[in-house]
């Protein structure tokens, strides 16, 4: 089983986001960059598939020089090798999806895994777009996966609002991982050392020959609106609860 895992490097979720004065991006100074948390579930699932069925795991990432760190971490978790698409430009979602699809095509694979969304732009588009580009079936927001190697079929459980559904499909296919699929492992020290020797292939975005034009234009980023001054109650519980319920009922009119 050859599994490709597409990972993105994103600011740690504990980051305070500050917007650049031109409104066209965020201030990156001092940001701690990590693997997108949902992509970690995808990596872990690939590792479990390899433990069960054997095969190879190739991590694919796209971005500037700093993504090397994310790649090293994925390799330290246990992926076999990596392909980095180098681009310092800000690319459109469709350009990214088409570049990743092209790399996947060049690599060959049985499965493509990625996170259900990246926690920076929150677009949740790359998985389905890669699947569409490659004319492959997809399942997004996967919380459980069974593989039937004999019939080359998958049975995936995906999360809906207040329900789940079972999706059956052949593979090759594209799956996007949701929290609950597994518990990602931490890299061990020996594996961190081993990762340093693993192969990282670099290709430039330009060399992939993607002629897709940008489809979305950022007009500007703005901070969310400020929250009003809080009313904090500190008296004895009976009093504060009475006051709170009055405020909610009469001032806010929400209960």
């Amino acid at each position, binding site marked *: 089983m050859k599994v490709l895992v597409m990972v993105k490097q994103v600011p740690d979720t*504990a980051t305070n986001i500050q917007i650049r004065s031109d409104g066209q991006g965020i201030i990156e100074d001092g940001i701690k960059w990590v693997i997108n948390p949902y992509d970690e579930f995808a990596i872990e699932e690939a590792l479990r598939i390899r433990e069960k069925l054997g095969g190879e795991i190739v991590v694919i990432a796209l971005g500037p020089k700093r993504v090397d760190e994310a790649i090293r971490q994925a390799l330290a978790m246990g992926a076999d090798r990596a392909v980095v698409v180098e681009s310092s430009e800000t690319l459109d979602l469709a350009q990214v999806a088409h570049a990743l699809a092209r790399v996947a095509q060049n690599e060959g694979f049985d499965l493509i895994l990625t996170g259900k969304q990246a926690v920076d732009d929150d*677009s949740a588009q790359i998985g*389905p777009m890669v699947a569409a580009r490659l004319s492959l079936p997809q399942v997004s927001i996967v919380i459980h996966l069974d593989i039937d190697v004999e019939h080359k079929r998958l049975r995936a459980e995906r999360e809906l609002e*207040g329900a789940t559904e*079972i999706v*059956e499909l052949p593979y090759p296919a594209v799956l996007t991982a949701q929290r609950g699929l597994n518990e990602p492992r931490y890299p061990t020290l020996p594996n961190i050392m081993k990762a340093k020797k693993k192969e990282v292939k670099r290709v430039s975005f330009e060399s992939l020959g993607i002629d897709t034009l940008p489809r979305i234009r950022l007009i500007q980023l703005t901070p969310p609106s400020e929250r009003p001054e*809080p009313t904090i109650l500190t008296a004895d519980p009976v009093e504060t609860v009475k006051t709170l*319920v009055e405020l909610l009922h009469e001032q806010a009119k929400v209960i």
Partner: protein
Amino acid sequence: MSQGVFVIFDQNQGQVRHVVLEVLTMARQLELGSVTTLTFGANASQTLKVLGEYGADQAIFWDQEPFTRYSSDGFADAIAHVVPHVNPAVILFPASAWGKDLSPRVADLIGAGLATDCLSLRVSTDNRVTAVRPIYAGKALAEVAIETPVQMFSIRPNIHKAIPDPKTPTVLDLAPVVSPDSFQSVVTERKEAQTGVQELTEADIIVSGGRGMKAPENFKLLDELATVLGAAVGSSRPVADEGWVPHSYHIGQTGKVVSPTVYFAVGISGAIQHLAGISGSKYIVAINNDAEAPIFKVANYGIVGDLFQVLPLLTEEIRALKANN
């Protein structure tokens, strides 16, 4: 010249999710021409009444085989084939699990730009639409425009008001094209969660607990408050990670991002990633024994106190209030 708005959504036993009514209202308010809807599956045509109530001009129902079972590739292919016939300027999807799965696939098939999970849409002077969508789970807002002729947007639930505007929709008989190699992935089973559990992203009131709850069994105090309020129950990340509650309870940047009218944060200190996930709440009520907890900086109302004393009193007080109204 493409014009009008094409609204694509799912239904279950003739019922649509509330977000569909919100999306129909937005579609109408764009005033870009007629509103055409498309929905799928057995009982699809039973939605005609509610579609009329919320101002759809035309409705397409694909209720025949193979559209009775959801298939992302099958549905996306058929939608891509029908889009030129409807010829819309704008396509809207609900940003539900269904819409999030299907819309990017459709977008790539028709080569259209898609902005997902939008909070609001605005028509600019040239009759093009700009959208505002949260990024970093709401730590920032992005205003975006779509550069392709067809502009696609998915709309976050629970943000826009649903306002009726009764019409009598025309049912369009546009037969779907089904490619023989599509419908590869097919939904074979649906498992409902226990009845009475509200979806957090659609809830009007949420009661949420954190580490301050001290133990999983204490969540029953939150359940009791939620029951009198008709609220959904959520949690912070650490208690979901600990297994006190299922992962589906987890609210925050790597969990559910919610936008209720009232969010009760009980025993939640307010880590940055949690605050991002609740920033769309209209009112935040914090109950915490630490007056310095960051949650109080974003709260509209706060009680500094022992939640084990406060919660039962609060439940009783609200029960009494409801009984008198």
